[in-house]
């Protein structure tokens, strides 16, 4: 039985478990204390001093996000002293903040702006020394503008939580700034592009490298056939960018909105998620039967691939050779689709909409640079929809274009941790035993960092593991290398919770982040989409049948290998 502590916050009595912070207790009393460096499940440093409160027994103001509650404590969160202190803190932060709010992409979605409004703070109270740092746009995925950085260190903690540590605080005092070791550009650091730093940034210091203008150009170029396709998780998150509740499935409105941008086609990437499963399940069975490098790791996540190439190159033979659904779709369009329709692939402009910053890097990889022209994050798509004056929430529901509209529920769950595993198990089991009936594999669902299960089909027993978050992937690899664990098939997604929590997803206000379990709510929408679908197994998809009959013959055929598979190379980076 956990000991409970009784205290009063602004006169309201609350009882919370021992060890809770004042901030936890305030939330229980429905009192919001402003925060800036604090972010639930990410950062708890007590360094920005926005959450200062008065508490009996404490000397001076204390940081509510880290200060533990005590029996009989009385806390005041909204006194003149608190407000003055917070206001001064904001004025000092703003004294060295680049004031480019008008065109900042985080404008109206910025914690600093929100707080400044709340505390009636102007930008020019203190005219500080200009501290100009170079803009880092060296990587294909993330841009860092340190002149907008408020040194909250949320990005540093996010990167450390991923076990990457590509960035850290450099220098001290006024000179302090966030960057890579030896102030090298991000592109030369061990950054894998997962983008967790971007979604955790409270201001506009971090963003994806926007490619919106390339897409506008293509859309107004009459010689180009522009094709959009959307990744499984976008339907579960795009609505958030239009103030819809977290976890709303907006598939129909998403298709309608993209169609109003006037591309030639809007396709469903779940189709190539199904195609990936056909290829990957076949590869897995082959590897198991021939004892070829096992365990086999999934290869859908480009940040994970980059991580293996630079940190564990000895595991490269264990990566599935399947391209990701994004790359498969691009490759399919520029081969099968182009041939079938008599179009020069050079006149195709392929745009994927993905929840991810690393996918921008993936489509720039030299092994497959021709497949996809531009990868847009959910945020970039939302921005295009807003620029085009489309009233998203009022749109009717529309359907994807044929022939790449129909996909199975297995494709939809690709966006959540455990989803690729479950989708692969559904089809692999069917391939091994035609009478296999089980569709759902609850052991691999949920947001626990590492999940394990053992299944037996047609006399074959396979041990599987699922990890999300690269630090957990590292744990699994170390356990395999030490011989402590033995698996046959492992799904890795770099972002905690999988693509639904990807680095390209909408950035939400701290008040939402601190109260809603994003990963769970968004994943729920995908599992609902799956259970509402009559087709649950990739192998049962009529579209997949057509693709193989028309073009690839059978999974892992010579042609499939040439177009749908890829290779990796070691690239050690410290």
């Amino acid at each position, binding site marked *: 039985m956990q000991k409970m502590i009784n205290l009063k916050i602004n006169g309201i009595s609350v009882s919370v478990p021992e060890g809770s912070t004042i901030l936890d207790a305030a939330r229980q009393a429905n009192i919001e204390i402003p925060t800036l460096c604090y972010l639930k499940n990410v950062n708890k440093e007590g360094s920005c001093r926005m959450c200062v409160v008065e508490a009996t027994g404490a000397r001076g103001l204390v940081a509510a996000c880290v200060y533990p509650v005590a029996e009989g404590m009385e806390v005041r969160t909204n006194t003149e002293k608190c407000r003055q202190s917070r206001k001064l803190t904001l004025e000092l932060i703003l004294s060295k903040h680049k004031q480019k709010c008008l065109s900042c992409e985080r404008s109206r979605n910025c914690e600093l702006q929100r707080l400044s409004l709340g505390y009636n703070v102007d930008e020019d109270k203190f005219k500080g020394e200009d501290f100009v740092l170079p803009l880092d746009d060296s990587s294909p995925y993330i841009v860092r503008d340190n002149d907008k950085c408020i040194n909250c260190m949320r990005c540093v903690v996010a990167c450390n939580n991923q076990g990457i540590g*590509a960035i850290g605080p450099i220098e001290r005092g006024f000179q302090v700034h966030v960057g890579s070791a*030896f*102030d090298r550009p991000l592109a030369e650091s*061990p950054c894998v592009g997962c983008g967790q730093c971007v979604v955790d940034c409270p201001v506009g210091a971090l963003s994806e490298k926007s490619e919106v203008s390339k897409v506008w150009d293509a859309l107004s170029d009459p010689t180009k056939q522009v094709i959009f396709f959307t990744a499984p998780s976008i339907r579960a998150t795009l609505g958030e960018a239009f103030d819809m509740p977290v976890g709303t499935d907006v598939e129909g409105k998403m298709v309608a909105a993209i169609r109003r941008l006037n591309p030639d086609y809007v396709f469903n990437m779940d189709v190539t998620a199904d195609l990936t499963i056909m290829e990957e399940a076949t590869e897995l069975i082959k590897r198991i039967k021939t004892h070829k490098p096992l365990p086999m790791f999934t290869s859908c996540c480009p940040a994970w691939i980059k991580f293996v190439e630079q940190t564990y190159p000895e595991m490269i033979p264990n990566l599935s050779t399947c391209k990701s659904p994004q790359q498969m779709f691009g490759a399919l369009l520029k081969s099968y689709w182009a041939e079938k329709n008599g179009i020069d692939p050079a006149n195709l402009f392929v745009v994927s909409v993905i929840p991810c910053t690393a996918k921008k890097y993936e489509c720039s990889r030299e092994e497959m640079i021709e497949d996809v022209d531009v990868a847009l994050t959910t945020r970039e798509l939302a921005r295009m929809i807003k620029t085009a004056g489309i009233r998203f929430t009022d749109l009717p529901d529309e359907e994807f274009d044929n022939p790449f509209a129909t996909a199975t529920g297995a494709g939809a769950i690709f966006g959540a941790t455990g989803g690729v595993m479950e989708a692969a198990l559904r089809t692999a089991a069917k391939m091994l035993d035609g009478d296999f009936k089980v569709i759902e594999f609850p052991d691999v669902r949920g947001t626990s960092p590492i999940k394990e299960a053992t299944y037996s089909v047609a006399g074959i027993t396979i041990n599987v593991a699922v990890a999300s978050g690269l630090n957990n992937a590292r744990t699994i690899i170390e356990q395999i290398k030490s011989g402590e664990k033995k698996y046959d098939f492992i799904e890795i997604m770099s972002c905690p919770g999988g693509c639904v929590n990807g680095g390209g997803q909408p950035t939400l206000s701290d008040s939402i982040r601190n109260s809603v379990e994003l990963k769970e709510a968004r994943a729920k929408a995908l599992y609902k989409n799956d259970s509402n679908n009559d087709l649950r197994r990739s192998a049962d998809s009529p579209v997949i049948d057509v693709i193989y009959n028309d073009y690839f013959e059978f999974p892992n055929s010579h042609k499939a290998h040439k177009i749908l598979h890829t290779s990796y190379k070691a690239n050690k980076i*410290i």
Partner: protein
Amino acid sequence: MNNNAKFCATEEQLSKLNAVIEESKSVPGCLMHILQEAQGIFGYLPIEVQTIIAEKLNVSLSEVYGVVTFYSQFSLQPKGKYRISMCLGTACYVKGADKVLEEIEKQLGIKCGECTPDGLFSVDSCRCVGACGLAPVMMINDDVYGKLTPDMIKGILDKYREVK
């Protein structure tokens, strides 16, 4: 980073570093201690040394670099055979130490904190060596020079250049 002199380590230096790391790596918070020892061995902390430390301690290079740049006693620049330390403490400063430092920088063609490409001289500033009666004061290794004026600098440096 502008390392004028190229980093080269002897086998002896590297094995000393490895011994220090092995000895203290199980102690929590050992990074500071190892960095201090490493600076003692190599005279400074170039990327090569920081990389070895990061790998052996299983921490990120960015974390090591963050610590090195936080504390002013750590140096990313190599030190010269002759380490010039110009006092910029109050007494020396009011007696024109800044002009003397400017002259040193001019004569050597490097900035304070740097090392000449031939590795002969490095220049740093310090705060009070306790010889205010001789202000402005500088030290070259263990030699003390007082009551300095800019025109004395060339002659002093030449003395060391001749010895080599």
